[in-house]
Structures are given as structure tokens and as C-alpha cells.
């Protein structure tokens, strides 16, 4: 039984078929890539698995438990963390507050603790802060802990988002174009960080990327999505040389 398994997932937006017969199986510690041209439905697949949409058909199993139809925060708490393509940070909050908030589902002091500042809350908050600081350390941004995120450079914001996702203590980490908008140098750093996180936490990672080099470097298995359907799946080398993939990215040669 794999860690995350998606069986024959199909989704319609009204009459539009966005995803058709999608299957996925990720094991512990595996990095799985998902590529495809713009509009192929990659982010839709992320949104379906993380509960933002409920798939029309099919089932999603995390650790053998069906998470289909659960609300996003429950799915996240079950161990499925994600980052967003277009950086969804909370613009008035500091870096450390971002990371601490991702521990929300693990807070045990309840409303009474929040209202009356009980000793239990003091203890738990201190512990949450410690966990958050460790993660910031791992991301190399612990010196920015008290900065409001909007004042940070783009690369650092990406790291905050990653640290925040890791604070959930996920079983599977979903990365939606983690290097979008980055320059080559920042991209190299990001690859290093993803590698490091993967190694240290033995995470399963599910990755959407546009940049072939990054996907090829990181992923152990790759799927190619075109118009909501997987047209090729396998090892990076195989996918790269698959004519269907080349067609999808470069277009067909016009036959004369």
C-alpha cells in the first residue's frame, strides 16, 4: 500500500472535463513530478487532492484512509501540506507567525487557554515557537523571524511558505511550481533546500514544475499531463524522450 494513492479520479467543471481517469501512487520518501503545458490541469489535480474541490469520480487514499470529500483543513491536518504557485502568504503577519500558525491543528490548550493565558498555553506556545524556529533554521531564514513577510525578497518568501508547510509535519508535501519567478541562482538554492528537506525528513514530495531541468534533477518518477489526461508516466529519462511529451510541449510537425 502506497502512502498516497489516487484511483481513477475524474473531475468536471460543469460540462468541462478538467481531469480524466487520473491515477497516482506515491511511496514514503519518493519524489514524484507532474509536468504538462499550461492549462493541462496540474494545479487542478493539486486542488482536488488537497480538498479545495471534491472530485466527481474516483477515490483518494492517504495512508489507506479515504480523504475524498474532507474539508481542506482536515486533509492538511491528516498530513498533506502544500505550497501555492502564486505564494499565498498572510501579508500582515511575521515570518515566525506564519510557521507557528501551521501548528494550529496540534494546539491543545483550546479556547479557554487562548482567553485566559493558562500555564498550559504558555508551555505549548513556547514549544510551538521552538519547532518554528528550528524550521526557520533549516530554511536559513531564522534571522528574519520577526519580519513582516511583505518586506521580504521573493526567494525568502518562498522559503517561508515551505517552512510553513513543513510545520504541519506532513506525510506528503505538495509543491506547486516552487521556483516560479525565481532567477537561476535562487532556483539552485531552492533545489538544494528541497533535497535537504527530503533527505532530513524522509518526505514524500509531489512536485509540479515547468522547468524541465529541475523536475529531471529531483524526481524519481514523472507524469505528463495533457488536457487533463496522463499521456506518459515513468522514469525521467523515458518521459523526456517520449514522443507524446515532445509533441505536447513543442507541438506536432506539420505533415506536408
Amino acid at each position, binding site marked *: 500500500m502506497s502512502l498516497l494513492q489516487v484511483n481513477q479520479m475524474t473531475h468536471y467543471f460543469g460540462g468541462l472535463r478538467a481531469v480524466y481517469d487520473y491515477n497516482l501512487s506515491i511511496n514514503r520518501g519518493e519524489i514524484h513530478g507532474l509536468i504538462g503545458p499550461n492549462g493541462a490541469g496540474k494545479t487542478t489535480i493539486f486542488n482536488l487532492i488537497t480538498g479545495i474541490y471534491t472530485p466527481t469520480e474516483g477515490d483518494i487514499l492517504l495512508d489507506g484512509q479515504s480523504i475524498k470529500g474532507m474539508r481542506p483543513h482536515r486533509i492538511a491536518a491528516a498530513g498533506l501540506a502544500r505550497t*501555492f504557485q502564486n505564494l499565498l502568504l498572510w501579508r500582515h503577519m511575521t515570518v515566525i507567525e506564519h510557521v507557528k500558525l501551521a501548528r494550529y491543528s496540534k494546539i491543545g490548550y483550546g479556547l479557554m487557554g487562548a482567553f485566559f493565558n493558562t500555564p498550559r498555553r504558555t508551555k505549548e506556545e513556547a514549544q510551538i515557537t521552538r519547532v518554528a524556529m528550528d524550521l526557520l533554521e533549516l530554511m536559513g531564514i531564522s534571522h528574519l523571524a520577526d519580519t513582516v513577510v511583505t518586506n521580504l525578497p521573493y526567494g525568502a518568501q518562498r522559503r517561508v511558505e515551505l517552512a510553513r508547510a513543513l510545520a504541519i509535519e506532513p506525510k506528503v508535501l505538495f509543491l506547486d511550481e516552487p521556483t516560479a519567478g525565481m532567477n537561476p541562482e535562487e532556483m539552485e538554492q531552492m533545489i538544494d533546500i528541497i533535497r535537504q528537506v527530503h533527505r532530513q525528513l524522509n518526505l514524500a514530495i509531489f512536485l509540479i514544475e515547468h522547468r524541465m531541468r529541475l523536475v529531471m534533477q529531483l524526481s524519481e518518477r514523472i507524469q505528463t499531463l495533457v488536457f487533463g489526461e496522463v499521456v506518459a508516466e515513468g522514469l525521467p529519462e523515458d518521459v523526456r524522450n517520449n514522443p507524446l511529451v515532445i509533441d505536447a510541449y513543442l507541438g506536432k510537425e506539420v505533415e506536408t
Partner: protein
Amino acid sequence: MFAQTPLLGWILGIIVASGLERLVGLPLARAIGLSKPPVLFGVDIALKTPQLLPASLLYDLVIYLIPVILVARFLNPLSNRVSAWLFRFPLGVSALVHVALLYLGLELWTGVSDYRVLVAKLMMIAIMITLSLNVVNGFMGEFSCSHPGFMALGAYIASLLTVVFFVGSNFGPAVLPAFIGPFFFPLALILGGLTASLGALLVAIPSFRTRGDYLAIISLAFLFIVKSLFENLEMLGGARGFGNQPNWATLPVVFAWTMLCIWIINNFVESTMGKALNAVRDNELAADAMTVDTRKTKMITFLFGAFWAGVAGGLFAHVLRYVNPSTFGLQKLAEVLAMLYFGGLNSVVGSIVGAVGYNMLSEMLRPLELFKWIIIPLLLILVMIYRPTGLIAFREFGLHNILQPKKSHNKDEVENVPPAS
């Protein structure tokens, strides 16, 4: 020059000035041609009869400005040492001492006239209302218009309970002995607050299913429904209002409730749980993806805000000892929103500044009558232009920073004090 004066020094200054006023205020006022000590720093007197302006200024100078400055300046070794000493205990001890001294100052200051007592009480109630609205509109970023409605619910329910049980009304004579009254009063306020929360639940269920402007519209409708409900409930006096509340909302009672409200709301918004409100405001999708139960957060916060509005309403009714449905209309809403946006969104200190500032201004400018309603809106417009989110928005100073000693004789002593929290 004053950078070294801790908060304690300023509070001592206020106590000394207020004490001085009690001792020599009246003779001094008579001596410089005023009939009695000016109630609100002489602004009202000067506006009524401009030729008394120099006398009022002189009074302020002698009674307030000079003593406060002298104490703040020359007692700061003492106040710093006391502050540093208090810091050896948990932060709560230091906070309690400050609050107690602040109350002493307030008691002394208001002791001069009943008008001041009333102004102080209404100001503290305004702080509670503004804070409770800030939780919803500022920290959570929704737009609620029903706070006067929640106030009305709290006011009527609390009044009904105290009047029926302890005063006697058209429902029959008093059923409980008067001596347990003051102990019953907190219960009545809490029940009033809970009723307001119940009303909030009615608003919240339909409004929080989706995001958008629904809450503003539904809560505005709720405000009108509550108002016309009380206007038409003949057994509660209808449009004539409902009076005879026992005189239990004394200065210490209102002060204690206000401090409790500030403490609890501050605890809430500072906790990681409370930060979820900011996350819901700034990006709900991301909040959901980070395990925050956004629907529950919104519900609880809205009910929590309504609760404190209800408690404030109950106190309000017992301060005036009379309530009237027309008090809780659109004008009240405008006033509460003005205090909130004047002081600043997403800030506990901002709400306090907003409520105190607006109320002070409003009372001081009372002699201007019509022009008051030109000057205050004008000021609000200026605030909106130069500080669109309010005077002290999105800033907290932290209790630790507010209470800490600014300088000590023995410098190491301060630096070695661990930041208790």
C-alpha cells in the same frame, strides 16, 4: 528627557496631579476666576466663554502639566527601581500593580465631579465596544454592522434580570434580597453577553457560508430587527424605554470589566489560535491549507465579539440606568465604527486610543453643538487620508515593553531580568 520615564512614572504623575486637584483644585479655580475646577481640562469652559481661556490654561498648567512633568522627570529613579523590582515577579504581577495604580489615579481624578465619573464610565464602555468590534472588523477582516444590536440585546437582557429580580417591575415585586444583588450583577452581564452571542449565531450561520459582503448586509438587517423588536415589545417599555436599573455599575465595577475585557481579548489575539483570525483575513485559502478550521474560527470570533458587545451593553444600561431602543441605531453604529477606524485596525492599543480619543473629543467639543459634528467628521477624514487604517493600526507594543523599566541605577540589574511572560 522623558525617554527614561517608565509607564509607572507617568501613572504616578497622574496620581499626584489628581491628588493635588482634590486638595487645592477648588480654591485655585476660584482664585483665578473660574466658578469650579474645569471638568475636562477647561476646553469646554473656554469654548463657552472664550475670555476664560487663559484661566483654564493656567489651571491645566498648575494642576496637571507641571506636577506630571515634575514627577515623571524627577521621580524616575524611584519609578524605574520599582518597575525593575516588579519585573522580578511574573509579568502578571507587574500588570496588576499598574492597573491598581491606574485605578487609583482614575478614582482621584473622577472624584471631583459626577460628570467626570459618567464620562469615564462611558469611555471605558466605549473601549469594550471598540475592542469587540476590532476583533471582527480588524483582526478578522470581516465587516460587521450589528454591534449596536448586540449591545441592545445585552443591555435589555441584563436590565431585565436585575430589575425583575431585585427592583420589581410590572412583572411583580422583587423576588431576591437586595444584598446578593452586586454578586448577581456579573451573572446578569454574562447572560446578556451570551444572549448577544446567540443573536450573533443567527447572523453568522447564513453569512459565513461564503465570503464576501454578505455579513455587512445581514448584520445591518439584524441591527434593524433588534431595534424594532425592542421598540415594539410593550412589556419592556417599547419605544419609551426601560428604566429603574439598580445602581451597580459603579466606577470600580466598570473599570474591572473593562480590564477583564482588554485582558481576555489581548490574550486571544496574541495566541497562535488568535493569529488564525489574521490568516483568515489575509488569505483564507492558505489558512485552510495550513490546518486552520476557517469556518469555526469565523463563527467563534463573531460570537466572541458579540459577547463583549453584549456585556458592554449591559454595563451601559446600568450606568445610565435607563435604556431606549433608539440609542442602538445607525448613529451608534457610525460612532462605534468611527472609534474603531480612528484608533486603528488590528491593534488592541489602537482601539483604546480610538475610544478614549473620540469620547474625549466628543465631550470636550460639546459646547460647539452643531459645529462639533463638522469638526469630528473632518478629523476622521484627515485620519483616513493620512493613516487609512487608523492611528495605531497593525501594531502592538507588547505588555512586556510597555511595563518595563526604562533605565536603572544598576544597569546590569535590568538586563539580567529574564523576560517573564
